[in-house]
Structure formats: structure tokens, C-alpha cells
């Protein structure tokens, strides 16, 4: 080997190492000098300081939904607060993965949450109550009141703030209903079904007429959160079935309450082949992709998908035809089921977090769930404007930019319905603070799928569900665990 070749090799190696080291270096003072870039000033409204960023990372664990936007917001937070936060994307089974990490005390500072797990995690000592955070009362006063009430545990502590919330309703494809004579010339439903049996009868009518082979699309799979339990819970709310006593946390459903009718209806839908045969393994994203194809008349869906998929001409052949049904079929004649997802903080004590790290974590929380350093609803506004994720602050529903964005895909009637549903909504109170609910819900998935397939009768399903609820209530306790 010649000297030149050795020299060239050495240069490449040294250069490579230098490049590697520079790319691995944490963003420090040298990258955030007093001479802030134009983009930084534009983004944050003020130049960032030249102080070194903290060495301890703040880890924000999220599930897979538009991670690019989350990352973008984390970057803004890092710039505004001269911080060192990182988005941690958790693929697959979000809760199971995070639970094992938290048990192992792997650093996690802020997480997305849903109610059944939030209750369970709090009881396990993994979540930080928000009540002592500086300025939290101002944030709470700013929120739509029932949402703040909803995150209050029986011990009086509040646990989460809204990442997004929306209303599950029956949505319909007006074009399909027009063919069945069930919608007017503008595509709005003329004869909304009063009961779930009426809805199935309409579906049967469309099936017989060859308008749609399986007119109803439901969420009946076994994914981690939005699964067959959610479809069941939605129908329970529609029928006024409360499932759990709010005060004692005792199960209160049995063969004499509306839950039996819900089970019978679910079984009936599958038996009469009004839902796709493969609906029990059909993923959420598959559901979303096919509802817009014109093969389905009704779907139980969340409100944001009208703006993200169904009424978007580039994504949907029937764009413009999708609307909310209101009220929902069922005895309660409700507007729908409000379903919130939360930001929650992991417990400072559990992680032995120093005071400054706790404070930084709370800054991250406030930035995401409320306002940025400049006092703007930065994150909330972006989610609403770009992805139609409902936010907890009423002024955002009047923001001209947001209204304009919604009105591209939501007709005036639907927009008004959406606001009405979200302002006066009906979240699922049954699962709030009930410690046995999450494990019950896990087992429920298989019970409900067996019911749908006809392996177990509706009566036996209700009996089994109740027996399991009683067993878990006995094992984990009810409301008394919050005071003992």
C-alpha cells in the first residue's frame, strides 16, 4: 500500500469520526447563539437565549398518529424554552409497551393517555396529579368545563389535559342513502333511524336493493384502544346504559338493563350480514380507507375523519357526501359519545425527579396542552386547523382560520352539529376512576367477538360480562379504594 493511499485512508477515517461526533453532539450553546436565526424568531416570537440546554432529556412518548407534527412541535418547544425534549414514538401496542418501560423506570416524562389506562396508571402511582402545577387553574378555567371534570379522579385530583377530543357518531354517506330514498337532494338523511334495530332494517333494505352489500361499518376489531369495546360502549351510551354506578363503582348492568339490547343488536348485525364478514380483524386504517368507497351507508366514526379523509376529494370518491347523524339511534337520543385523549405526566416521585426537571416537565405539559411561551394556543390550534382534532378551548372554535379550515370539508349543518356535540357532549363516565374497568375491558373484547360470531348467546354474554365485572370489582375494589 502506498503512503498516499494510507494518508487518504487516514483522512477518510478522521473525517468520518469528526462528522460522526459533530452529528452526535447535543444541541448546545454553539448552535443557539444570541444571533438567532430568522426562522427561530419567526417561530418563537423572540430570539432564544445562548444558555446551554439541559443535559437531561425530556421524553414525550406518543402513539403513531402524525408523528411529524408532534416532532415539529417538540422542536418549537425546544427553541422557545431552550430545552432538550425528544419525541419517542411507541409503535404497536402503546399501553403494554409503555407500561413495561415505566415498570423498568425507563425515563418517560409525558405520555398520551385514554381514560381506562389513566385510572389504572394513577392507582399504580405512575401519574402525576396536575393540581399543583403553576397556573393550572387558569388553564382549567379556560377549558370546556365538563372536560376538566372528566379528568378528576375520585380523590379530587386532576390527571390529564386534552390532547384531542371528538364525538363518535353514526356517520353516513349521503350518496348511498339517496339511492335508497333515505336522503334529500342535498344528501342529508331524511329519515334517521330512531333505534338501532331501525338502523339495521334500513341496512337490510339497502342490501336487498343491491345498493350496498354490507351497508354498516363498525369498529369491532381487537386493536389496543379503538376496538370492539368502543363500538359496544358507544351503543351503550346511545341506549342510556351506564354500566357502572358513578358513586360506588359497582357494575349495574344485567339482563334487565339496555345492555342486553345492545348485545342482541350487535349479534343481529353480523348474523344478517349487514357488516363485512372480516370486520373482526379489519384494522382501523382499513375501515377508514373503505368507508369512502361508496360501498357503505353508515359507519360509527369519529368526527375528525370527515375533514381528514371522507370529504377530501383527493382521498374519497364520494367526497362531500359524508355527514353526521343526529341524534343517534337509541333510547337516549344522544348527540354521540365524546371520546377524549389526554396528555398526562408521569409521577415525579416515582421517578425521583429533581425539582428543576419536574418544572421542565410541567413546562412541556403546558406548552402542549395549553399555551406556548408567547401565550398562544400554538399546538392546539395546529391540531385543530390541520387535522380537525377537537381542542378543549372554546375560543378556538371561533378562530377564523380554524373555522375556514373546517368549513372546507364540513357543511354548515355538520359544523354546527360538531360544535354542539363537543360543547355539550357525553363522555363515557363509566370508566372514569373505576379501577377494575381496564382489565374488564381487555377481557370484554373476546366476549364481544364471540357474541358477534354467535358462539355465545346475548343473554349468556351479558351474564358472563357481569360475572367478570363482579369478580374484578371484588379483586380491585370500587370507589372505596380512593379513600382507604
Amino acid at each position, binding site marked *: 500500500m502506498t503512503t498516499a493511499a494510507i494518508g487518504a485512508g487516514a483522512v477518510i477515517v478522521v473525517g468520518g469520526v469528526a462528522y460522526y461526533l459533530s452529528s452526535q453532539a447535543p444541541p448546545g450553546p454553539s448552535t443557539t447563539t444570541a444571533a438567532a436565526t430568522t426562522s427561530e424568531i419567526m417561530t418563537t416570537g423572540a430570539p432564544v437565549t445562548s444558555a446551554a440546554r439541559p443535559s437531561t432529556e425530556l421524553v414525550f412518548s406518543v402513539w403513531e398518529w402524525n408523528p411529524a407534527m408532534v416532532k415539529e412541535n417538540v422542536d418549537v418547544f425546544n427553541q422557545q424554552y431552550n430545552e432538550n425534549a425528544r419525541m419517542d414514538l411507541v409503535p404497536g*401496542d402503546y*399501553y*403494554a409497551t409503555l407500561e413495561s418501560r415505566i415498570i423498568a423506570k425507563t425515563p418517560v416524562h409525558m405520555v398520551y393517555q385514554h381514560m381506562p389506562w389513566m385510572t389504572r396508571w394513577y392507582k399504580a402511582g405512575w401519574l402525576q396529579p396536575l393540581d399543583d402545577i403553576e397556573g393550572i387553574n387558569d388553564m382549567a378555567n379556560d377549558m370546556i368545563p365538563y372536560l376538566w371534570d372528566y379528568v378528576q379522579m375520585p380523590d379530587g385530583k386532576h390527571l390529564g389535559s386534552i390532547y384531542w377530543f371528538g364525538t363518535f357518531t353514526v356517520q353516513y354517506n349521503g350518496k348511498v342513502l339517496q339511492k335508497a330514498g333515505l336522503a334529500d337532494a342535498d344528501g342529508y338523511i331524511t329519515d334517521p333511524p330512531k333505534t338501532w334495530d331501525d338502523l339495521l332494517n334500513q341496512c337490510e333494505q339497502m342490501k336487498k336493493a343491491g345498493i350496498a352489500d354490507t351497508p354498516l361499518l363498525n369498529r369491532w376489531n381487537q386493536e389496543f384502544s379503538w376496538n370492539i369495546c368502543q363500538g359496544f360502549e358507544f351503543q351503550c351510551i346511545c341506549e342510556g346504559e351506564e354500566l357502572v354506578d358513578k358513586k360506588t363503582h359497582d357494575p349495574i348492568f344485567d339482563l334487565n338493563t339496555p345492555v342486553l339490547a345492545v348485545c342482541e343488536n350487535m349479534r343481529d348485525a353480523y348474523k344478517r350480514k349487514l357488516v363485512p364478514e372480516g370486520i373482526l380483524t379489519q384494522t382501523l386504517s382499513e375501515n377508514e380507507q373503505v368507508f369512502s368507497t361508496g360501498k357503505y351507508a353508515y359507519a360509527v366514526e369519529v368526527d375528525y375523519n370527515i375533514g381528514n379523509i371522507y370529504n377530501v376529494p383527493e382521498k374519497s370518491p364520494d367526497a362531500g357526501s359524508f355527514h353526521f347523524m343526529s341524534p343517534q339511534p337509541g333510547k337516549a337520543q344522544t348527540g354521540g359519545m365524546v371520546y377524549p385523549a389526554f396528555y398526562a405526566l408521569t409521577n415525579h416521585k416515582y421517578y425521583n425527579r429533581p425539582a428543576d426537571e419536574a418544572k421542565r416537565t410541567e413546562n412541556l405539559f403546558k406548552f402542549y396542552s395549553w399555551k406556548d411561551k408567547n401565550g398562544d394556543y400554538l399546538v392546539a390550534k395546529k391540531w385543530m386547523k390541520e387535522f380537525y382534532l377537537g381542542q378543549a378551548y372554546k375560543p378556538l372554535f371561533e378562530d377564523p382560520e380554524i373555522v375556514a379550515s373546517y368549513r372546507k370539508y364540513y357543511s354548515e349543518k355538520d359544523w354546527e352539529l360538531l360544535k354542539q356535540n363537543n360543547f355539550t357532549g357525553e363522555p363515557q363516565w363509566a370508566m372514569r376512576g373505576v379501577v377494575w374497568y381496564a382489565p374488564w375491558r381487555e377481557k370484554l373484547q373476546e366476549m364481544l367477538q364471540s357474541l358477534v360470531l354467535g358462539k355465545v348467546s346475548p343473554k349468556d354474554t351479558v351474564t358472563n360480562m357481569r360475572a367478570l365485572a363482579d369478580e374484578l370489582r371484588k*379483586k380491585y375494589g370500587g370507589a372505596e379504594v380512593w379513600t382507604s
Partner: protein
Amino acid sequence: MVALKSGHPESSVRRLTDRQFAYLLVIPLVAFEFALVLYPMTQSFLISLSTYDVSGTKPTFVGLQNYVDAFFDPYVQRATVVSMQFACTVVALSVLVGLGVALLLNEELRGRAIVRVLALLPWAIPEFSVGIIFSYIFSNVLGTLNGLLYSLGLIRSYTSFLNPDLAVYIVALAFVWHYSPLASFFFLGAVQTIPADLYKQAKIDGAGMVRRFRVVTLRFLRYPLLIVLVLATVEALRAFDIIFVLTYGGPAGSTSTLSYLIYTETFRTLQMGYGATISWYLALVTFIVTSLYFILIGRWR
């Protein structure tokens, strides 16, 4: 005899006996095994003797109660049946496909080396990715198989392959696609050691193709077959990723194997004690089945 010398020329030389030196060599390995195998297994067993639920209750020692509960638990019983269905399908198809492909690859083909590499590729793909590939193939709304059958006019509407009757076999099929190349690899190695003269002699003796395969080929495949059977069984019984991606254990628990049940009990309902119990139950099932292979192959001798 081995000696360890100090740096000073006049210092005494401390000699180790062969036995001591052997222990010295083995200690790191034993420590490693203890830390990574023995300790976790002991912990797992201790946890299985408690009702350890990290989300609320404190661990309580319950002796063998979890094992009694598991024995009578209909979910465990059903999962055992599903595991057996899954494992039997995987083992049978892996042996058949593996052997068939090995015999094919043993032939004088043009570009044989490349074909051999390509045939091994599915094994190199992670199980999780295999699950995703097969979910695209078998999806009842967007699946390529449905699309193909529909285009050929063989079905009038998209059908659900992942139904309660078929799902476990579809998942097994995906697993066989992933695993059988490894079986081929073992069989191919063995087939190549068979002297060609033996086939010639058998032919002269009037043995037909089937008899030649039975008396010549199969004799040489006995030990690779044992390896394939044991590995396929163990792999099938602990398969998880493919089930998780394709069916989440559904529909209605029809693909909920013991390993999937361990996952749901341990990580979804956070019943660490009960989950550990089912893990030991699965270990016992695996031990019994693999022992049977050794006994049967031993008798074949």
C-alpha cells in the same frame, strides 16, 4: 500445568492446577448464564407463586394457586388447543416444504447458488415484517389475494380469510413461509452428504423412487429431521409477532396461543403472577413435546 507469573523476575511463580484453570475459564460463562438465565427464571418462578399485579395490589404469596387456576382456566385450555393446532400445522408444513425445497435445491440447476440464497431469504425477514406482508395478502378489504381471486372471477365479493375457522391456519402458513427456509437449509446440508453410489446400488437392487427415498435419503435425514422438529415446535409455540400483527389473537380468541395469552395476561391486564404461571406451563408443554421427539427418533434408530 499452567502458571501465572508476576512481573518481577524473582517473585515466586503461582501455579494453578488444571482443575483450577478450568474453573477460571468456566466462571465467566457460569456468571453470564446465572445473570441472564438462572436469575430471571428463578424470579419468574417466584412471581408465578404470587398474585403480582403492578397496577394496584401488592404481591401476595399464593403458593401453587395460580397453577391450579391455570389448569382449570378455560382461556388457558383453549389457548393450549390453539397452540397445538398452530404448532402441528407449522411443524408438518415446515418439514414437508423444507424437505421438498432441499431436494429441489440439491438438483443441478442453472444459477443454483443464487436460487439457494433466494430460497433462504424469507427466514432473514423479521417475523413482524412477515406479519405485515401477509396482512396485505389476506386483508379482506385491501388484500392482494382477494384482488387476484376477484379479478380472475373466482369470487363475487371480497372474502374474509382471517375468519375463526381459518385464521389459525393462515397465521401458521405465514409462519411456515418464514421458517421453512431454515428447515431446507438443515435438510440440504444432510442431503449433500449422501453418497451417490448408494442410490445407484438401490436402483440396481430394483428400488423405485419412493423406496430409494425411504431407505437411503430418509436414513441420512434422521438427525436433521430431529433438529427441524424440535426447532419448529419451539419456534411455533413461542411465536408471537405474526399473531400480533395479523389478528391480535382474534377473531374471538381463535388465534390466541399460549404465548399470546401470556402477553395479554402479563402486559395488557398486568397480571404478572398469572402471566408467569402460564409461561411455566408453556415451558412444560414445550419440554414434553420435544422430549417425545427425542424418544421417537431414538426408537427409529
